[in-house]
């Protein structure tokens, strides 16, 4: 082998080696890299009970209730398979609304209610003008369902 070919092999070996090492490391940390759990995972007991974690799903239509005289809100998060009741006191982000994907961080209470300390809105990858959204109404519900299914499968 000429020195040049040797260097070529060295560079290729570095790339392959680091690539494999990274793949293993990411595989090992898979659980920790998961940013949020789906309601199905929470119901099946995969989520931790002792420490706080995040749960993500769609805010179920018609589930949002505000306590009069306070900032407390209650809503249900769903992935169209299971649902989790959430209670939160504080200011909600702009994009928060029923049917919207959100991620709540907090703890699961013994009675199965998730007490959130923080609620973040998850924006999807769709960008369109309002007119287009109007004309897509029936279709939009279908994409909402597939999105939730995708969240459930993680």
């Amino acid at each position: 082998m000429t020195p040049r070919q040797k260097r070529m092999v060295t560079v290729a070996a570095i790339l392959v080696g680091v690539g494999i090492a990274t793949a293993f490391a990411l595989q090992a940390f898979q659980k920790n890299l998961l940013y949020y759990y789906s309601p199905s995972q929470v119901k099946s007991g995969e989520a931790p009970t002792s420490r706080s974690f995040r749960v993500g799903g769609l805010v179920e239509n018609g589930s949002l209730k505000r306590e009069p005289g306070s900032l407390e809100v209650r809503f249900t998060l769903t992935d169209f398979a299971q649902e989790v009741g959430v209670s939160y006191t504080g200011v909600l982000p702009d994009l928060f609304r029923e049917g919207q994907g959100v991620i709540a961080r907090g703890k699961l209470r013994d009675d199965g209610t998730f007490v959130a300390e923080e609620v973040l809105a998850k924006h999807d990858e769709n960008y369109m003008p309002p007119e287009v959204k109007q004309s897509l109404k029936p279709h939009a519900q279908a994409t909402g369902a597939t999105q939730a299914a995708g969240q459930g499968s993680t």
Partner: protein
Amino acid sequence: MWLWIHKFGSPPHAYRLLGKLAPWFGWPALGLILLATWWGLVKAPADYQQGDAFRILYVHAPSAWMSMFTYVVMAVAAGIGLIWRIKLAHAAAAAAAPIGAAFTFLALVTGSIWGKPMWGTWWVWDARLTSELLLLFLYLGYMALRASFDDPQRADRASAVLAIVGVINVPIIHYSVVWWSTLHQAASVTKLDKPSIALPMLIPLFIMIAGFQLYFGWLICRRLRAEILRRERNASWLKEAN
């Protein structure tokens, strides 16, 4: 072919060629960026959910794209320099690093500004944001490593290895939103499926990306020329030119 590479690899020739090329990148870049700014801020319709706030996309997405593109350019240049011992390739990698760091910084800052009103937070440690922050540290680490050697040849080789190792992060950034559940949304444009962004909003985005791409070309021409001057400051061809 080989003759051409050697000719281009010679500093005086490259210096002259880059000087001639620069305006061919610079002026179209300025034109396209101005056109895309007007198109994106004025002509494009508002988003159905985010209203006018989505328009930060026209800076955020091209910056994020360029932050990864620049890294690949830098790693490939470093690899060529390492394997074929071409000094000009190392110089190109060195010239690209601060550009990439700037694009990465811009992507992180614009994302943060958008994240506060939309998500409700400036920053989260999800896989996409964390891997993009790692990219910034890779650029900064590369620059710091270069600066820590007095001997330019040793600086070239040591930093080239770092640049090549770090390129593993680029596919991780891109696929982070697919592999893990992240707060950051999935890709709207860079996927095989049809874009999830309406055409009147997509056109200015593409113009802006083309503009950024040409701007990068202009910057690299200018910076590489400066890098050649710095490395060849004692060479006879420079004295003859003056």
